[in-house]
């Protein structure tokens, strides 16, 4: 329990960011929904179109909606210029506002339908102009319904805002995603408790205001809205001191990335820099974020950049790939590839040793012959990646079933027999710990995956920063990285990524 309390204590900043994001999204939702609803109340066609659109938005999973704003904003840069943020607050705000539209719109339209025709005729009959009718009759009668819609929207938005972590906006999703990846359940629970608690408190405050509107008690409205406004103001105040000059370190959503981020963060703090972390970013998001200076430092892998960014399918060898990437990044994106960290974290196909021996499998060629009877498990993006397609085609792999797991659960699936072969990572400590064998890639279909330290175009102008990080180049051997990863991933005596990073630094005398 105390681990959960400790985790909760550390969530102040995330909570404040979450409150600001959710309240901004709800406010924007209200600003858009109310005029639309008034218009819809006067035109059947508008009502159909707006409600249809809002319902359609609602059917898109929140995670996908958030992710979709990245390419949308990227294309809008043609109009608004390069300064338009594509990650973080703006896309999260837009996606969540769209999500908040439906309950507000629907309730407002319903409110109008519920209004007694006699009352509306009386409003005309006593001589109200259409503005007076709106202000004196329609708006006050609709207010309790609208407030109920805002309440629903607020609860949804607070829940969905946890997903904005994946597009680089700090939120209460940070501990949830980090905890899921490192199997730190205290962290996951702390994030869930904080966001659920926030939703419950918001719901009751807005409920108070709703009752105030229904019973026409102004005091209740002011009490509910006032406390909510105070919470928002406190959040803004607590975040005001945030250092704009802080170095932002990005991390994809697995343990190795969290550890490397902490390693660099601790190093920069020792050098006197203020540091912020953007954890849990999607793989494609990370590359784009660092090349556009949304984040300052990122870790990527040669094979990933080679296939996903350069769009290459061939495998000319690790030296050639590394050099080509360094030049390509410098010339196309202006990003500095400071160097490779000294270890490789390749995709590889792994099996349980006993199972592989029983089937007589040692290479991917052997696997191909048995594949039609086997199930392969991959991380959530693996089967969409060009590397997999290259390997599949090179060996004509054709499995009975393919299943997706988060990278953590993938190993459990393999040991539990729910998958026969998985897309493992070679620097993962669990490969050795779970007695897995890596199947030999005799055709060299997987490219190499040397870990790269990348510095954004803006941050690479800072010579002192670059020098502070240069000692990391070539300094981390794969065994040390594997050990650090395992200390975070294992079930017992788990270390936090920060502790693992400190251990790693000490061991390697960094």
């Amino acid at each position, binding site marked *: 329990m105390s681990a959960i309390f400790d985790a909760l204590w550390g969530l102040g900043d995330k909570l404040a960011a979450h409150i600001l994001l959710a309240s901004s999204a709800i406010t924007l939702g209200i600003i858009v929904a109310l005029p639309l609803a008034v218009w819809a109340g006067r035109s059947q066609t508008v009502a159909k179109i707006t409600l249809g659109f809002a319902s359609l938005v609602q059917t898109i999973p929140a995670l996908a909606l958030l992710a979709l704003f990245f390419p949308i904003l990227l294309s809008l840069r043609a109009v608004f210029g390069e300064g338009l943020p594509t990650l973080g607050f703006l896309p999260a705000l837009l996606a969540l506002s769209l999500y908040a539209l439906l309950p507000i719109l629907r309730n407002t339209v319903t409110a109008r339908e519920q209004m*007694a025709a*006699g*009352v509306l*005729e*009386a*409003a*005309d*009959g*006593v*001589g*109200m*102009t259409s503005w*007076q009718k709106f202000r*004196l*009759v329609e708006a*006050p*009668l609709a207010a309790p319904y609208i407030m109920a819609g805002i309440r629903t929207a607020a609860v949804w938005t607070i829940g969905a805002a946890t997903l904005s972590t994946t597009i680089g906006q700090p939120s209460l999703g940070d501990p949830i995603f980090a905890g899921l990846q490192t199997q730190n359940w205290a962290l996951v629970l702390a994030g869930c408790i904080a966001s659920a608690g926030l939703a419950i408190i918001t719901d009751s405050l807005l409920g108070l205001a709703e009752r105030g509107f229904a019973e*026409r008690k102004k005091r209740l409205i002011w009490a509910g809205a006032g406390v909510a406004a105070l919470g928002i103001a406190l959040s803004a105040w607590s975040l005001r001191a945030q250092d704009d000059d802080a170095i932002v370190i990005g991390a994809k959503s697995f343990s190795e990335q969290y550890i490397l981020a902490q390693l660099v963060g601790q190093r920069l703090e020792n050098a006197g820099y203020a540091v912020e972390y953007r954890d849990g970013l999607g793989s494609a998001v990370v590359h784009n974020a660092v090349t556009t200076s949304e984040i300052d430092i990122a870790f990527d892998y040669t094979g990933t950049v080679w296939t996903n960014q350069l769009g290459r399918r061939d495998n000319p060898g690790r030296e050639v790939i590394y050099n080509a990437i360094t030049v390509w990044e410098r010339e196309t994106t202006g990003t500095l590839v400071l160097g490779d960290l000294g270890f490789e974290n390749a995709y590889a196909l792994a099996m349980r040793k006993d199972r592989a021996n029983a089937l007589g499998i040692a290479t991917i060629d052997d696997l191909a012959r048995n594949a039609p009877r086997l199930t392969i498990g991959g991380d959530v993006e693996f089967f969409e990646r060009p590397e997999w397609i290259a390997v599949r085609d090179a060996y004509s792999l054709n499995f009975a079933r393919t299943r997706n797991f988060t990278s953590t659960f993938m190993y459990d699936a393999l040991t539990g027999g729910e998958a026969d072969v998985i897309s493992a990572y070679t620097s993962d400590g669990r490969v050795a710990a779970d007695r897995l064998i890596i199947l030999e890639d005799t055709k060299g279909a997987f490219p190499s995956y040397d870990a790269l330290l990348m510095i954004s175009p803006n941050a690479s102008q800072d010579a002192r920063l670059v020098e502070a990080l240069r000692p990391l180049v070539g300094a981390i051997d794969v065994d040390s990285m594997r050990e650090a990863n395992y200390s975070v991933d294992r079930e017992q005596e788990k270390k936090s990524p920060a502790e693992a990073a400190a251990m790693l630094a000490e061991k390697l005398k960094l």
Partner: protein
Amino acid sequence: MAAHYPSIEFRNTTKVFGAVTAIDGVSLKIDDGSFVALVGESGSGKSTLVKTISRLAEPDGGSVLLEGQDVRTAKAPELRRRIGYVFQGVGLFPHMNVAENIAIGPRLAGIKLTSDRIAELLVGVELDGHYAGRMPSELSGGQRQRIGVARALANDPHILLMDEPFGALDPVTRDALGKRVRALHDRLGLTTVMVTHDMAEALLLADRVLVMSEGQVVADNTPHELLAGEGGTIAQGLVAVPRDQAAALADIAR
């Protein structure tokens, strides 16, 4: 100047809803100070005819004159503030208390009613001043309709239009409120047009009864004339109902 013109005048007024002709070329004059009842079955056009006076319904043909002026020359909200209107089903604003409901008409014109004036209007409909702070949901149907009448009179109108004002009330309340309205009509010198489907009510309260059928005025007589058998078959059909009831009651009493 009102003396030179009839208070309300319809000139070949016509109103069509789709394929249905609600008012079919009605022409008539209503004198200043008269109490006119518009009687007819549902769908006869009586409600629509009254609505054309305050432009809650706009005629498709012909015109409506109020004190000599075509109603279309005034802006609809301003026109309506000059006319007292009691609505079918009351139409009180549920989110306003009694005083706010009564004061709404003057408020729209930028005048704030004093609490004395509100109390006076409440007394006019036989309600105590302490009703001022009540919400409509706390009142009985009869009390609500009394408030509706008080609200209609708040602007000191010359004209009072009532669209089936007592339809939903119990007979005792209905009778009392009808008499009360007639007394107010006489005291304030109003021109009153009341739509009703109840011929007995029309005969007892009005000076002049107009019978409508299929959008046309088929009878225009005093209560005395109607009871004497004038006005044609449709009117006599309607008069027969209360007369037969009265005769049956007299038989029972004998």
